[in-house]
């Protein structure tokens, strides 16, 4: 039966540095396995679409431009991604990877959250084609 069990702790805390992380001012180093932004390596991709099938939030799309020459563009919708690592697990060719460095991904606009991965000329090709109306409707607009 005591009163004020916390007394010792309180006095100690008064002379201790606060435990609060002052986040935007100092950043703690991230663990190696942190699941951040998805990266895609078009060189290794075989276009098997396993990652697309298993993605629980439909955050990735793979556009095949030329299957023969292995020209693919991955459209990554970061705003839908749940960083569950399933696509990385499903990929048999190790062309997907979640970055442990890029994790401050918030944005006020939707545009920066849609990322096109692929060889530069393929992305260019896709974007030019998309610019024509009606080619691909944006999923969040009717």
């Amino acid at each position, binding site marked *: 039966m005591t009163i004020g069990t916390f007394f010792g702790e309180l006095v100690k805390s*008064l002379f*201790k540095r606060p435990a609060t992380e002052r986040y935007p001012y100092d950043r703690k180093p991230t663990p190696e396995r942190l699941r951040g932004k998805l990266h895609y390596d078009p060189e290794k991709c075989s276009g098997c679409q396993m990652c697309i099938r298993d993605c629980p939030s439909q955050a990735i799309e793979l556009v095949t431009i030329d299957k023969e020459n292995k020209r693919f563009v991955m459209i990554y919708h970061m705003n839908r991604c749940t960083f569950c690592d399933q696509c990385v697990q499903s990929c048999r060719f190790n062309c997907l990877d979640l970055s442990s460095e890029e994790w401050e991904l918030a944005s006020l606009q939707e545009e920066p959250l849609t990322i096109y991965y692929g060889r530069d000329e393929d992305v260019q090709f896709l974007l030019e084609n998309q610019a024509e109306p009606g080619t691909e409707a944006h999923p969040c607009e009717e």
Partner: protein
Amino acid sequence: MSAAQAWLTLLVFPGGFFLLATGLLYEFIDRKLVARYQNRVGPRWFQPLADVVKLLAKEEIIPTGVEKTLFIGLPIVGLAGALTAALYVPIAGLPPAFSFRGDLIVTLYLLSLMTLCLGLSGANTVNRFSIIGATRTLTQLFSYEAPFLLALLGPALSADSWQIGQINDYAINNLWMIVTQPIGFLVALVGLMGKLELPPFDAPEAETEIVSGALTEYSGRGLALFRLGKDVELVIGLTLISALYLGGLANPLEFLLKTLCVLLVMAGLQSLFARLRIDQTVGLWWRIGALLALLQLLAITIGKVLL
């Protein structure tokens, strides 16, 4: 006292602006101390001011079913009461602006006015959280008021005066009364916490039960005024306790040091306990607080007769 001087007293020092500024500063120190006790960073120095400015800029919503005059008037009366009380205490270690025989009692009543206004404003609305909060506020008022009064009577008896200025002078010239009347000091300190509804006596505004108690329906200006009133009361209460129990207040430096010391202890007490239920609060005050204060008074009287 000339008219200009009177205005100055009321509006700038020690009445109006000075007191509001000190109140906000002390609120900040209190919050910061509690945060540090809890191993947190706590707010920055202007946070209480920013809160008040923000609240003043917000729309004040007057809910349906309330008596409008009361709803608007009560925060003003409460704050005014607290501000008036400042005129009779040695704020900043300077002699009180006004003084007469028995001003201790008047000060205590002015301080209670604030709590009364709080209770009435809660009872004024139809919100059930407010009503429960108001009931609890008034219940608590009736429980801590008597022991608090008794605890402040101890120094008054010792000094043979009901005038705060004179008790202050007596305290400066004698042994600190925290040494001679430790129980009185403790009861007064805890009584002040009850008055300000600080944890663990925050049942009247326990947010996890009744949202914000009596103040649930208040927004904007009314809420800002009530909060300012509490800040002012905090300063006055600390001044009173330091003046009476900690060897009086002779100069500003002493004022600062002593009140901050009391605040340090008070912040510690705030973070040390779980919230008491209202029945536990009442039981604590009447069963222990009042009894202890009475014993203290008895001891003083006997001491005076014998010496």
